[in-house]
């Protein structure tokens, strides 16, 4: 039944090209960034929270874990950068869930735009948050005494590895936000799944003292792989050992969770 019964008044679009998808995604990104500008408190999870963790770990546990606080700071800081990603990426799922809850999604979904634009726009905005969080944490680290042992290229490389992994985490978070119904539960689930990944890794302590099964888990845990890659990039040491694992995990997560999220977004009513 494709016959036009009545000449439509407005322009009728049948398809949307990739340029339009990009334009729509950026419009949504802008909306999410304006929201952050209006409510800067939304940045606390990507900035203040990891700072507090850093202070606790360095000054409370640091002396007990390492020989002195400064050498522990050098060890910890790349790990905290990864933890910052885990904190900040939770906003993707919470944001999507909130948009569904208050009806904004219906507005978007009744517009002639690609379904993926809403998700892409959200993740792009969160990527900006992530990057800002990483830069703030790097400056903070330098202020409290962290010293980069390598060069600017390595720092850039570390940031790239981190942001790519953060991008992957945002899509996992998006998936959680679309599958779990209430924003409160999204918040809890988004927090819970990252805990074993953080503590069962080399993020806070070397894995040598862990029992065998945990060491085995830790050695394939993306947190360990990304953290150790960044450690090598910032503190010196062989980068290649963990780089493949770090990039592999990031790309793998993206390949799995982007289509899963888009699929759930389409299906959700």
């Amino acid at each position, binding site marked *: 039944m494709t016959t036009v019964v009545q000449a439509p*008044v407005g322009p009728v679009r*049948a398809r949307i090209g990739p340029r339009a998808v990009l334009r729509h995604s950026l419009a949504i990104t802008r909306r999410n960034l304006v929201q952050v500008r209006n409510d800067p408190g939304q940045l606390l999870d990507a900035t203040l929270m990891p700072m507090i963790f850093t202070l606790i770990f360095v000054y409370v546990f640091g002396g007990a874990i390492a020989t002195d606080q400064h050498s522990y700071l050098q060890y910890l800081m790349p790990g905290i950068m990864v933890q910052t990603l885990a904190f900040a990426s939770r906003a993707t799922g919470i944001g999507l869930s909130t948009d569904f809850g208050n009806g904004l999604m219906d507005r978007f979904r*009744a517009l*002639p735009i690609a379904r993926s634009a809403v998700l892409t726009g959200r993740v792009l905005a969160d990527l900006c948050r992530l990057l800002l969080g990483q830069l703030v944490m790097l400056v903070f680290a330098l202020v409290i005494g962290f010293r980069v042992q390598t060069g600017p290229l390595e720092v850039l490389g570390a940031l790239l590895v981190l942001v790519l992994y953060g991008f992957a985490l945002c899509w996992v978070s998006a998936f959680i936000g679309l599958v779990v119904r209430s924003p409160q539960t999204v918040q809890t689930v988004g927090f819970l799944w990252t805990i074993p990944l953080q503590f069962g890794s080399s993020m806070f302590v070397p894995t040598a003292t862990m029992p065998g099964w945990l060491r085995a888990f830790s050695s394939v845990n993306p947190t360990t792989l990304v953290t150790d890659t960044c450690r090598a990039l910032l503190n010196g040491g062989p980068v290649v050992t963990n780089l493949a694992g770090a990039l592999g995990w990031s790309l793998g997560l993206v390949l799995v969770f982007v289509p899963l999220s888009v699929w759930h977004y389409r299906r959700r*009513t």
Partner: protein
Amino acid sequence: MIRSEGLVKRFGAATAVNGVDLEVPTGTVLGLLGPNGAGKTTTVRMLTTLVRPDGGRASVHGFDVVREPHQVRSLIGLTGQYATVDEGISGRENLYLIGRLLDLSRKGARQRAEQLLERFDLVAAGGRQVRTYSGGMRRRLDLAASLVGEPAVLFLDEPTTGLDPRSRNGLWDEVRALVANGATVLLTTQYMEEAEALADRVVVIDGGRVVAAGFTEELRARVGGQVLHVRPARVHDVPSVARVLAYAGLGVAAVDAGDELVRLPVSGPDALTTAVSALGRSGLSIASVDTRVPSLDEVFLTLTGTERSGS
């Protein structure tokens, strides 16, 4: 033109919409009336491509809502309980966002936002976050947001529920202006009064089915006749008044505890005379007697057979 045939939507075991046929000719307003849970919103969500029907078919300007959702979306505007705006950004930013999503240029989107803010009396509040808006401002912005693309077909899902009378009248005026400009409108409401004020035709649904359809006058006529209202001076005389009217052959009025007056559907020109003389003989003290055309809300309650649960 909006058209649906045998539209069905099930949620698990429950059937929310059970074979709804609708037709809204181009340039007219259809009022979709029904109590809470009647299936109004689900019907609108199917017609606006947000929910896939489980049965039947529907089209907007000839485009099928399931097979050609994209074309449908480029023709429609949606305002409702479920399609809202972003509370965390300003009214102006909301309108700009939708303009950009509808492929207006940056400048075009900005201009369109200003036009709409002006038209809906939101210029002063345009820069404020929407979470600070009053209910009336919020609804005006909702409506403005659905008009950014100058849609040919507009869906308004309970646009005035919860608004004070002044805001409601303002919104009604806007809808009338749109219709005067040739828009096709499907409006859902719980209020017969709203349907009467805005709609050319009315479809009443209940339990997911169409229970009545037609022009508002036709629906009134279906319930028929007039209603006699007798208000005794003392509230405790209400049952006695009902008894007197019944003895006078006017029919039995249902009287509930707490009623201040007796309502009795009557027919024929002599009913009022009969009632007054019977009441006069009874010696009861009567505050007022009159006959009225049934209100559309009474028609509505008769047609749906339900008490309206609180809004």
